[in-house]
């Protein structure tokens, strides 16, 4: 079905306003877009790892979720949803549940890349018919911007602070989409918030309606942790893809597909310069770090092109 922006935006909202996420939070935009990809006639159960999204959307006695929703703990969203999905098949077999249900879980990069990695890996390997959506904002934002394995190199976080002896996080970020793709599941995609959200919407739709396990890694900027001017979120996301820092790709049944190749690949400085967490990289004495950064982005981009051309 061709993407029709007006039609998509007129679908009923399944993540209600009134939640307590920050203004301009990338995660909230991710959630709304993903849920819009559900067919209105389909029911859903939403899972959620502990994080900003959970504590801001389901504060007893209020919930922002129109669908059934379960939060269990920080590290077990994958396992929890696999139990729900299995119960669905058990009860459907017995005729106790007749409606169509879809299963989607949301976790930040802390709950997904790090503490929840084992639970996620298990759920993916067992190929439950569910979608795991990581809203990747590149640090533990709920507890105040501590580094995660998704934090990009040289980011200034509260556990990798920049100081006289430190240039921020020393390591590169973990390439989780690739790791999950190597679980040999039917659908993996990387996306972010762009334009009409066509890219994310269509990937969410594929993920939800592909039988078996699916994983979406969605770069979802955090204005507080990244320290950019809040209204600039769309500009930041666009720069992430145009610098090839955050490429858009899919892995469908093991086949890698590049979704977007910028006509003119922009230098990584264009993405980094927008964000306070990289301010120190623009001191004259740190020029070599920018060179190194560019090399790393290029290396990963080349690797992706290789995977996609096979």
């Amino acid at each position, binding site marked *: 079905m061709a993407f029709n922006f007006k039609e998509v935006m007129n679908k009923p909202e399944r993540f209600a306003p009134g939640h307590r996420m920050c203004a301009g939070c990338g995660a909230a935009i991710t959630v709304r877009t993903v849920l819009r990809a559900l067919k209105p006639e389909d*029911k859903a*159960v939403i*899972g959620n790892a502990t994080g900003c999204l*959970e*504590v801001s959307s*389901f*504060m*007893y*006695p209020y*919930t922002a*979720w*129109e*669908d*059934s*929703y*379960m*939060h*269990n*703990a920080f*590290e*077990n969203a*994958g*396992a*929890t*949803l*696999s*139990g*729900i*999905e*299995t*119960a*669905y*098949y*058990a*009860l459907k*077999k*017995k005729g*106790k*549940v*007749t*409606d169509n*249900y879809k299963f989607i879980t949301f976790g930040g990069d802390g709950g997904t890349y790090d503490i929840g990695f*084992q*639970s996620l*890996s*298990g759920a993916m*390997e*067992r190929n439950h018919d569910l979608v795991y959506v990581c809203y990747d904002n590149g640090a533990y934002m709920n507890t105040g911007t501590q580094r995660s394995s998704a934090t990009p190199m040289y980011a200034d976080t509260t556990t990798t602070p920049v100081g006289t002896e430190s240039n921020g996080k020393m390591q590169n970020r973990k390439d989780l989409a690739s790791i999950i793709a190597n679980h040999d599941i039917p659908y993996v995609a990387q996306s972010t918030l762009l334009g009409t959200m066509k890219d994310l919407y269509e990937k969410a739709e594929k993920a939800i309606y592909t039988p078996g396990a699916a994983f979406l890694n969605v770069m979802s900027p955090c204005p507080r942790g990244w320290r950019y001017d809040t209204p600039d979120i769309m500009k930041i996301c666009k720069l992430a893809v145009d610098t090839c820092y955050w490429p858009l790709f899919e892995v469908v049944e093991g086949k890698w597909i590049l979704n977007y190749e910028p006509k003119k690949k922009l230098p990584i400085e264009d993405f980094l310069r927008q964000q306070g967490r990289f301010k120190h990289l623009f001191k004259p004495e740190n020029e070599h770090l920018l060179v190194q950064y560019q090399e790393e982005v290029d290396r990963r981009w080349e690797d992706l092109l290789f995977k996609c051309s096979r």
Partner: protein
Amino acid sequence: MSIRERMSGNEAVAHAIKQINPDVMAAFPITPSTEIPQMVSTFIANGECTTEFIPVESEHSSMSATMGACAAGARAITATSSCGLAYMWEVLYVAASDRLPIVMAVVNRALTGPININCDHSDSMGARDAGWIQIYAENNQEAYDNYIQSFRIAEHPDVRLPFMACQDGFITSHAIENIELIETDKVKAFVGDYEPENYLLNKDMPMAIGPYANSPFYMETKWNQRMAMKNAKKVILEVAKEFEKISGRSYGFFEEYRMDDAEYVIVIMGSAAGTTKDAVDALRNQGIKAGLVKIRVFRPFPGEELAEALKNSKAIAIMDRAESFSAYGGPVGSELKSALFDAGVTAKTVNYFYGLGGRDYTVETATDVYQDLIDITNGATPVQFKYIGIRK
């Protein structure tokens, strides 16, 4: 007519699972409970049971998946031991707070440090404050009977709490004994269908579970759990009464063995009760008024009832198969002494540790403990918190 069989405690529980045929089981292997998911998987593979089995990658995930399945509206179970239970720790509390009536077969084994695969109660005793009902079995028959009763108790609308059906690792889980099984149709009719009021897959009423609930609501959540645990006392006895009708076997919070005129009493839990009974019989033959109280229900703790049963004793040995490292006794000792104090029972008490990590507990051991109780009654100073059978 009941069916006479021979089987191990693990087989007995697996057989009960087959008869009940729950919707979902998620489990991860750990000695000595491993056989339970193995046997259930075999039943499923042979079409003897239609449970959906989730072979998770860890115990943290087995509990989490079981919670998800239970919240979704399914009857959901798991089984574990020792470090497996310890790995679930965090989510045990969540399951209780979410009021999910999960039934977990716990095959008691020592917690690692050093690693040890044999029986003690340190695993489930460590989880005693997690908000789960805990019932302990002396032998295979009790493991089977308790397991069948557990669903009715856990799922009762006045309770809705998760349930640990405990038995002693290897001692009962792997030892083959005679057992009386109940016909499957009777078991099914007794356990009934699981029909939750609220669940995630209810098309008419979506549900949100697991909220962020700060100081204005947290304490009420705990109060409700406390009331449910209190209600469980009544329900446990009601279910036991009904179970007696189909089995002919009666159960209560604890078993009193030759307690009518008992002066010297051992209070113990699990398989060691059987050994102690032999010692009681031998002492009775010598005219010594020995008796035994075997605690079956540890959560909720039947403190008042235990005090009533023990009020005429002269000396009581409270036996703990788990250390709590309070340096002032074990979990059963601390709780029972407190209950006796509140009830004004003035019998002398000693609290001993036995059988840690599978250390033998024999009829001779129990006889020695009774001798201590006689000595204490005759004026000897009680030696508290003794480690029975420790090498010096």
